[in-house]
């Protein structure tokens, strides 16, 4: 669990941390979309440097980001290899049955590789620098227009924030149940796969039961505290938009302009 970086929050005090969650979410999504329109090495160089700059501004060590990529590296390399082998054009270096390695293919493979890495980096920046609740609020704010269509956006956001709040509880509880089993002589991490799976059953069942019980009690509390689905309610957590947030979005516009210029002039 400890090695999973993507989706974690790293408390820190940086310009990126202080940006509004809505601005960060929109900018990150936009940036990822933009990556798919770049078809020139220079364009990738440019957005790559931009990403490195943003990562630097979070004041989080580079090694943390690298750790985020590590579990996915084989998948990425595989995808890039596929693109290399199945793309023809340009100067052909090796040709073997349906596979070719060509100059065009090498470029496309490199682009694919870059695209994946940058997507992971930028989403890691987003989650490392934004509290999960803030992210939930941002999603809530951005989906607001859907409320007019009768989509229960608020319920969805609350559900998300409650789930996030329960992850540590669930981990604690797993630990407790495992300790209780250990105290009764169960040894985890030994035996065949089937044996190990069997040992998980007495962990999962109590967890399931206690979660259901918990959910029921929480529903009661929400009920007594007058939570009503679809009812108008105020929000204690306020997102505040600063000039820096507008600047962040303007930078996305600037980046788009650069990508367009590079795409059309450097053919």
């Amino acid at each position, binding site marked *: 669990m400890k090695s999973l970086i993507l989706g974690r929050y790293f408390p820190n005090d940086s310009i990126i941390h202080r940006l509004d969650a809505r601005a960060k979410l929109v900018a990150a999504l936009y940036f990822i979309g933009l990556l798919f329109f770049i078809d020139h090495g220079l364009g990738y160089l440019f957005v790559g440097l931009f990403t490195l700059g943003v990562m630097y501004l979070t004041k989080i060590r580079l090694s943390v980001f690298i750790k985020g990529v590590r579990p996915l590296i084989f998948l990425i390399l595989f995808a890039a290899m596929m693109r290399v082998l199945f793309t023809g054009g340009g100067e052909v270096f090796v040709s073997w049955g349906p596979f070719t390695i060509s100059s065009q293919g090498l470029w496309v493979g490199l682009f694919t590789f870059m695209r994946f890495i940058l997507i992971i980096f930028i989403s890691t920046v987003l989650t490392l620098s934004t509290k*999960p*609740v803030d992210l939930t609020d941002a999603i809530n704010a951005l989906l607001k227009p859907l409320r007019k269509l009768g989509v229960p956006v608020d319920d969805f956001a609350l559900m998300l*924030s*409650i789930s*996030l*709040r329960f992850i*540590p*509880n669930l981990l*604690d509880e797993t630990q407790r149940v495992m300790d209780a089993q250990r105290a009764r002589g169960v040894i985890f991490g030994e035996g065949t796969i089937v044996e190990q799976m069997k040992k998980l059953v007495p962990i999962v069942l109590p967890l399931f039961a206690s979660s259901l019980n*918990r959910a029921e*009690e*929480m529903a*009661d*509390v*929400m*009920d*007594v*505290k*007058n*939570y*009503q689905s679809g*009812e*108008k*309610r*105020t*929000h*204690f*957590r*306020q997102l505040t938009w600063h000039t820096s947030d507008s600047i962040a979005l303007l930078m996305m516009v600037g980046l788009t302009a650069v990508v367009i210029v590079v795409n059309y002039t450097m053919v």
Partner: protein
Amino acid sequence: MTDQPLLSVCDISFRYDITQDVYALSAISFDLNRGESLAVIGDNGSGKSTLARLLTGLLSPEKGAIYLDGVELNEGSKKMLRRQMGIVFQNPDNQFIATSVEDDVAFGLENLNIPYEQMRSRVDEALELVDMYEYRTKDPSQLSGGQKQRVALAGVLALKPELMIFDEAFVMLDPMSRRSILETLRRIQSELNVSIISITHDRDEIEFFDSLLVLNQGERVMRGKPAEVFKQMSSLKPPFAEQLRRDLVDAGMDLPDYYMSESELVDTLCK
């Protein structure tokens, strides 16, 4: 209509399993005036939590009725009546809805559609009262059991309800803070004319309350001022001060033969 009790419980009975003849509560009646505080005591399984769940409309009585401010509590009136009450349940872990202390205290206020500025001041005020203001940005996994209970308490205080119900809500507090919170509650009770029902096992907590309701296996055993109850029920373990008085009388000291609260006893002894 000023002498009408705030809460009126009329002959309610309840059982969890209607196929069986085991009642969690049977034929309970009592009134509670505005600004009055009531402690509910009884052994484990005597139906105290069940009573709290009935009062908040989470369960409905099989027989009898509950009136708050003259309005019968039922499916239709439940929502409106709940605006007038706040409850702290027994388990502090499962009462934490939001991701941080202050958000959790604000949760009930958000649902009442209260504007931000007002929420801010009420949340801060409530957190100050339970001494949790410094912890306002912490998340529940960073809090101890007693701290979570304080947060739940603040959640109710911020609502400023007319009726507060506490189901063993102070058990995890250390004795000093328990005293200070009970004193705060008593102050709020008289200042804002709030009614309080507190379910408790702590005999020493009792002297903070105007009257006492004793339950046993779902039945009402007694209702009265602590003095009366402890005089009539010699089997009931009394609070420390009363126990001390009885022991002193047994040891031959010349003390009046009636129930005394701690401060009364101290005054008498110091004379």
